[in-house]
């Protein structure tokens, strides 16, 4: 029974990890229709940023969050500006293109940092946990949950409260009309990519607390990230949140009752079944410009 209750916070923390890795993708894939296979490598870039900054100051882990946002964001910007913008409207070509970019980035990481995993030491205040009503809550997991909430709220405020966010939504809903209304759609695209990639970098810093930091890091998370975005509905913030929470709890309980391999299969089956009933995901964006 205790273990069953324990699975509740575990489900929540899995959901938080899923949300963090998928949040950036809701922008690049969801809003812009770019199947960005290099998203995982932007997560990796964030993790390596934390690795490079550690030891510089006592709070370098917290400093790594905005720096990783900038590093991964600029990488995304560069990718959009140099390659992806020549491929809009050709989703299959962008898939191949970004897949190639992801392989190049992985090899680059291998050449620069070496093939073995590197160590990112968690700050002292994130080591350990607290027992709450017989449930063990590790601090690092709580931190990831809080970070995920902060990111979602930040993104929501940006989209609904700031002019730049409104411009972004306008371009997503009807690109041509937005362009005729005087919105520089190219610039908006670039900024959307910067934001989405930057969020991947933030996720990378957080993931150093619970996972490996190596050249293959991105490949471990990319499939899950796409699952969340597809199940939630393209370009939908609340869809991504809901899908991440649903998948998190589904994962945690299925794995508890069966095992990790079978749970993964069952989650895939559940998603396939769900998409049969609702191919558009949980929420639908009413617009014309989507893929």
């Amino acid at each position, binding site marked *: 029974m205790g273990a069953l209750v324990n699975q509740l916070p575990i489900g929540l923390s899995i959901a938080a990890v899923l949300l963090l890795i998928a949040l950036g993708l809701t922008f690049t894939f969801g809003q812009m229709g770019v199947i960005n296979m290099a998203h995982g490598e932007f997560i990796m870039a964030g993790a390596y940023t934390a690795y490079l900054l550690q030891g510089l100051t006592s709070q370098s882990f917290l400093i790594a969050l905005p720096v990783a946002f900038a590093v991964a964001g600029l990488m995304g910007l560069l990718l959009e500006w140099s390659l992806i913008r020549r491929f809009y409207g050709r989703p299959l070509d962008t898939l191949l293109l970004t897949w190639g970019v992801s392989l190049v980035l992985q090899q680059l990481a291998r050449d620069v940092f070496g093939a073995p995993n590197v160590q990112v030491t968690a700050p002292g205040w994130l080591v350990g946990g607290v027992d709450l009503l017989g449930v063990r809550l590790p601090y690092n997991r709580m931190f990831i949950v809080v970070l995920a909430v902060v990111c979602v709220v930040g993104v929501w405020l940006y989209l609904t409260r700031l002019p730049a966010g409104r411009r972004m939504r306008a371009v997503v809903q009807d690109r041509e009309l937005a362009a005729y209304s005087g919105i520089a759609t190219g610039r908006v695209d670039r900024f959307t990519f910067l934001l989405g990639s930057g969020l991947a970098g933030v996720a990378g810093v957080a993931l150093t607390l619970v996972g*490996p930091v190596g050249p293959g890091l991105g490949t471990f998370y990319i499939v899950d990230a796409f699952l969340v975005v597809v199940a939630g509905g393209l370009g939908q913030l609340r869809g991504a949140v809901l899908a991440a929470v649903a998948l998190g709890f589904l994962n945690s309980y299925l794995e508890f009752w069966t095992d990790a391999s079978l749970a993964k299969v069952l989650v895939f089956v559940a998603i396939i079944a769900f998409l049969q009933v609702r191919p558009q995901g949980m929420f639908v964006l009413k617009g014309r410009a989507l893929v």
Partner: protein
Amino acid sequence: MRSRTFSRGLLALLLPALLTTACVEEPGGGAGASGDEIKVGILHSLSGTMAISEVTVRDAELLAIEEINAKGGVLGKKVVPVTEDGASDWPTFAEKAQKLISQDKVATVFGGWTSASRKAMLPVFERNKALLWYPVQYEGLESSPYIFYTGATTNQQIVPALDYLAAQGKKKMFLVGSDYVFPRTANKIIKAYAAAKGIEILGEEYTPLGHTEYSTLVNKIADAKPDAVFNTLNGDSNVAFFKQLRGSGITPQTTPVVSVSVAEEEVKGIGPENVAGHLVAWNYYQTTTTPANDAFVKAFKAKYGADKVTSDPMEAGYNAVHLWAAAVAKAGTTEVEAVKKAAGGITIDAPEGTTTIDGDNQHVAKTARIGLVQADGQIKEVWSSPGPIKPDPYLKGYDWAGGLS
């Protein structure tokens, strides 16, 4: 998983482009032992998920070749390595092995890490009557006439580890492993042992290779309260497992984890603070005190950097090259059947101590060692077998293992 197959397919398509950065090609032409050169193949994953481990073994093998050449080579000829990338993809291993044998005409190949890659290469070497030296501990129950196994088989690693745990009074165990041939076979052996010795197995869990979410599994362990956890996870998963185990409050004092695939290199990646106090089972540690090891560690750091560590599979790869060279010197030729015949009984002073090739099953006699991970990332030996253990890949000498092979 579909995505993985898909990605492999794409990888294969893009491989030629990658190879230019991933792999150093030697100039081709000529036979295995032509003129004043002997060509040997080095076949490890230099890209993909296994690169993390296999690159270090390649480094150790290249070091051994360099040492041999510095002493005048083998049979007066210079040993020239031809490096190929297995790309963590088992069919690629088979294909590259065939290429090394028929195109480069190498005298022998040193390579492989996962059992899946070895099983893919085995028919290639048997068909071509060529020689493979495999440097990693594995699940046993195999003895190909064309493979030399310089890593431990089960009776030199897993069985001594179980003996050690039983002697420590551990009565309840939890098994954790990656979902492929090595952990599943190893756990079959562990369960047979446990049934015979009255040890209770509280749980047996497998996770896919590359799995990173261990909170549920850790919760199951916390709930089962075992005396010890036997860990056969491989690769990056170990990092996630130990980081999340530590967060859950399970300590090595109450529940030590015994790992058979975590060596110095992996400890560095996991972060020593996350794994300190847990146990590992190997045949060699960087701290093993032999004159040969002092020289090995010094030479390795001199060649690759002072921050590098040495580990058991690296040492086994390094030994493989020296054992092959000794066998060739004794045979007087690089011809495969002659080398095989000469190899039985060959002894070298390896970093792990005296190492002898067993002529019957082409494994080597090795000393088993249990180590305790230290806060500085090094591993301290806490127990070792009285001497080198004779390899017994089919566990014929153990009554409880009767039903396994």
